[in-house]
């Protein structure tokens, strides 16, 4: 048993799956042939529209759902077989928080802590208090959880995931339903945790969220993995677009077209297009100015993950699989 374990650990993958597949009893194929590899220490963004199989994958990784094909290793050990040894080192937030409304926030944490057979009951209260403090809920610890706002519930869910020192945090849509302030707080908490060296596996359908906090990403679409890599590689893969703001869009379009800029789009005072390969952008600007075009702004807009997604799937991102 220890041989394959060591092998997976050496690759430095905290999560690795081989051909992971789940077909539900109704015949619906939720996840198909997933080969995922999450490097240790990364903040891994698991991206895909709603219904693309992200949650099913996460549930398989956590031993809640039995795969119908392939295998999954978490922290180097097979899941769901080694769930009892692996899961004490994994904190999870799955599809939103779930709490006992009739218990206080603190009692909720005590209950979840009691469910972990590796948790020492003598230090249980201290762990709960520390976790509450970490997510900024100490003041509301004695309040019944049903009186919590959605943001507070989300934070309490995070506190439960942080009861023990973890090697891996699995956060499924951690900012879902939060206001912008709540989102910012959760994201900064994720960054803090990553700075502590914890690997964070974060699923989201929000592209900018992944771009803001993640180092690595994988893109799911209709149960399949389309691509995975670092966020930087991913954005570099799609070329940026040239954008010019000018009060003379007509003239600008003519000049740019002559210079070889393709796919030109005019939107009010902004003209954008794909710059030609191997062309110094400054020359384009000079050409515009020579032609008497008054240029207010000129620059290359970096490709977003959304552009990558659209170029990979040929579909908008809001389409559910």
């Amino acid at each position, binding site marked *: 048993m220890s041989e394959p374990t060591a092998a997976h650990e050496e690759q430095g993958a905290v999560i690795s799956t081989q051909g992971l597949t789940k077909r539900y009893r109704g015949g619906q194929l939720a996840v198909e042939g997933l080969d995922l590899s999450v490097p240790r220490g990364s903040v891994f963004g698991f991206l895909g529209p709603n219904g693309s199989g992200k949650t099913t994958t996460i549930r398989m990784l956590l031993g*809640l759902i039995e795969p119908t094909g392939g295998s999954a290793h978490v922290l180097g050990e097979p899941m769901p077989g080694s769930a009892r040894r692996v899961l004490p*080192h994994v904190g999870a937030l*799955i599809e939103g928080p779930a709490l006992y409304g009739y218990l206080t926030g603190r009692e909720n944490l005590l209950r979840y802590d009691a469910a972990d057979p590796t948790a020492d009951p003598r230090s249980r209260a201290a762990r709960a208090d520390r976790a509450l403090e970490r997510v900024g809920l100490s003041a509301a610890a004695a309040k019944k959880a049903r009186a919590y706002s959605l943001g507070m519930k989300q934070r309490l869910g995070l506190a439960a995931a942080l009861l023990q020192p973890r090697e891996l945090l699995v956060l499924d849509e951690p900012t879902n339903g939060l206001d912008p302030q709540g989102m910012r707080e959760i994201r900064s908490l994720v960054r803090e945790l990553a700075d502590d060296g*914890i690997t964070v596996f974060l699923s989201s359908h929000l592209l900018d969220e992944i771009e803001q906090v993640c180092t690595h990403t994988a893109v799911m679409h209709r149960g399949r993995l389309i691509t995975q890599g670092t966020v930087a590689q991913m954005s570099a893969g799609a070329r940026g677009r040239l954008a010019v703001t000018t009060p003379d869009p007509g003239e600008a379009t003519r000049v740019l077209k002559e210079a070889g800029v393709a796919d030109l789009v005019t939107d009010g005072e902004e003209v954008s297009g794909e710059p030609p390969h191997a062309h110094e952008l400054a020359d384009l600007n000079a050409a515009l100015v020579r032609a008497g075009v008054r240029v207010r702004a000129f620059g290359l807009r970096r490709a977003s993950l959304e552009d990558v997604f659209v170029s990979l799937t040929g579909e908008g991102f809001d389409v559910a699989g």
Partner: protein
Amino acid sequence: MSQAETATGGGPPDSRARPARAVWSLGLFRSELAVTFRRWRTLALLAVLAAVPVLVGIAVKIETSDGGSIGGGDEGGPAFLSQVTGNGLFLVFTALAATLPFFLPMTVGVIAGDAVAGEAGAGTLRYLLVAPAGRTRLLLAKFSAVLAFCLTATATVAVFALATGALLFPTGQVTLLSGTSVSFGEGLLRAMAIAVTVALSLVGLATLGLFISTLTNSGVAAMAATVGLLITVQILGAIPQLDEIHPFLFTHYWLSFADLLREPVYWDDLLKNLGLQALYTAVFGSAAWAGFGARDVTA
């Protein structure tokens, strides 16, 4: 593993070796009891059960305050009702006989049916499982909590009946069903034995309810199914043409607890009752374990 150490930041040398201790894993059982008995719903069910003997006691007291007897004889009303005026201890037997056919098992059905399905419906089940509670351990903790509820529910009826009986009626020597008299102390002991027997009579239904509870993500559906099954079984048990199957219904020997009030005690039906409850527990306990262990938790 060295990477893991740096990752967790100064943890123990081999952080993966954090062991599960047998004593520590009992924490879930304690937590389960606390969660069960802290709910308002549980307390409300117990309050209903406590009210039954009090109301029966007061009704009997009013009915007989003019020196008359109850309803003109032994017919009608639950067993032992007519003896209550002579000895308050009989209110315990009356109350148990009155609540056992429906009130007691209904409350057990609610608690057992909601045990797993309620957690699934609230979403807390997935967090308990990734904690990781372990499916077998969680099921055992749920089972123990349901058993504790069976005992508490029965004890609630018995204790409130005893208190009401002692307050409203005379106590003293207890005349058993077989005609012999025993001291109040021994009568009390027999009452305790009867309460335990009644609690054990509910175990079969409790396990059945727990099994149903593992099949669905809706606590209400599981509760309704369990209570519905109880009613169906009670109806089947009342149809004489079906007496072939009666010995296999978990309700069949329920009222055999009265045999503990004979001298000597008739053990036959008492033992058959316990055997039948054990059989139901074994069958539906295994089914629940097998089903829950392999089930996809999607809620």
